């Protein structure tokens, strides 16, 4: 089982790396990072603060788009090009196929984020700006967010078209990024019980990405919250695990015409 998942993951990684879209996206992300250095040099504000905010933000957003575009096409492309027929007519379970594709996607994103991280590190080293201890956890938190977004995209694409899946995943990501506001609203006094219940219900349905976010802390060299190292991995595991499970259940029932 592990061997088959690994084979599918490696094939996915190879396919995505050889894909020109990925190269273009890399270029886009790297360009943002370098651009942040340029902007920082032109402003009278704290150089490091600007570089960290702009480049980590740029990495985050560009990788979110790369993740959504590539993940929603992972299954669709296999079905459209009928390559799925070659794989699923072998002794491969559909769950293994989903896990393999997902693992390949995560490996590709890991390669992408490492390249972008190296560019930021190069920029900081060149400008003699010391990287704080929160830099690496912040990169990991971006990766965690990408894992959940990829799982959301995989879930939607298990039963829907790439276009619809892409829009829905984007919507979930935007709402998830703003979910922190809902969390704060739920603590505001003076709201009716029904409104509070509705806010809490909506909040529970969304992955609260704001709780993973460490980007602001990097700029000011602030340590992560005390429960972060427990909460963040659990958050990523719980959301991605349950979404993948749902994707497997839905894809298992899907007719591959």
């Amino acid at each position, binding site marked *: 089982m592990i061997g*088959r998942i690994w084979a*599918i993951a490696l*094939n996915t990684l190879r396919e995505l790396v050889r894909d020109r879209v990925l190269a273009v996206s890399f270029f886009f992300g790297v360009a943002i990072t370098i651009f942040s250095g340029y902007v920082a040099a032109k402003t009278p504000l704290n150089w490091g603060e600007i570089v960290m905010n702009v480049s980590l933000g740029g990495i985050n957003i560009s990788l979110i788009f790369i993740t959504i575009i590539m993940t929603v096409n992972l299954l669709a492309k296999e079905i459209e090009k009928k390559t799925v027929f070659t794989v699923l007519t*072998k*002794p491969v379970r559909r769950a293994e196929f989903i896990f393999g594709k997902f693992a390949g996607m995560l490996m590709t994103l890991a390669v992408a984020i490492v390249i972008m991280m190296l560019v930021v590190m190069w920029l900081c080293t060149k400008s003699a700006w010391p990287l704080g201890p929160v830099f690496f956890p912040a990169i990991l938190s971006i990766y965690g967010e990408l894992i959940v977004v990829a799982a959301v995209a995989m879930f939607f694409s298990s039963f829907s078209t790439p276009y619809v899946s892409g829009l829905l995943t984007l919507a979930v990501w935007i709402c998830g990024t703003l979910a922190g506001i809902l969390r704060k609203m739920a603590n505001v006094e003076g709201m009716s019980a029904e409104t509070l219940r509705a806010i809490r219900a909506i909040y529970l349905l969304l992955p609260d990405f704001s709780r993973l976010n460490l980007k602001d802390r990097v700029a000011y060299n602030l340590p992560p919250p005390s429960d972060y190292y427990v909460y963040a991995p659990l958050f990523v595991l719980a959301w991605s695990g349950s979404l993948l499970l749902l994707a497997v259940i839905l894809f298992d029932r899907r007719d591959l015409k």
Partner: protein
Amino acid sequence: MSENPVIQVEGLSKIFRIGFWMKQKPVLSNVSFSIQKGECVGFLGPNGAGKTTTLKCILGLLTYEHGRIQIMGKDAHDSRARASVGFMPDNPYFYDHLKGEEFLDFIGRLHSLSGAARRRKIDELMELVGLSHARKLELRKYSKGMLQRIGIAQCLINDPEIAIFDEPMEGLDPIGRKEVRDLLRRLNREQGKTVFFSTHILPDIEVICDRVIIIAGGELQGAGLLSDLLPPGIQSWEVCFRSEAETSARRAVPAAHPDPASRNHWLATVSDSQNLQKALASIQETPGIEIVSITPQRRHIEDLFYEKFGSGKQEAVK
């Protein structure tokens, strides 16, 4: 025949749900057949008959409403049932970013073959399908015939008990068709593999198959040994003769008609040897006419197929 079929399909029914309102469209209705070990079986039917749908149900790509499918005694839903199956889809679509040998290595991994076994099978199969020269070439650069051949190689990498092909001769030139036909025959007759393939290229069936299963409109129309379906012996004779004058030709054989392929050539079909003797005598007696050829006519699967589905009969079946 063996008591334990390698593929058993019983009462298979499949409905597609189409469009936003999930309108139901039955595509297979109560299809039952079995395939025995070592057989070479052709799955025949006009376009849209349900051949590919049946194969996809057998291979677990489609769910089905009713019926039961077993492969080597295991339920078709069980992915382990496919360990003894090799499958080549129609118009093979493979990962075009992979090189020939990378692709076969990937398929070998899906079958959980060891590294040594994969390397050995890749060498052997590349040689078998005549692609040793193209093993380092990306699949996107392969021609249609080469893709068909690498498709056959991936189908055989696990040394399957059953090889299933969906339209293996589709879109190939005559040379490619012959190569694939010979390969299927070798697999069945020399290596003893069970071969099951769908096609609508009928002449190939007679060369390769022992038995055919005919489907149309989603229903089984018949199944049997080719020797039972096609009576042996000569059904009629076709006489070709040369005559420059139409009147002479008509006088010799009133039912003769001009041969569209050759000028001054005439064709006449006679049903039995008595009529053949009469026609030959008449031709010899008529001046200015000479016999070119006498060809015995046998019944072919194509004739049988046309009788069942030709000229609008297919619609009637639907």
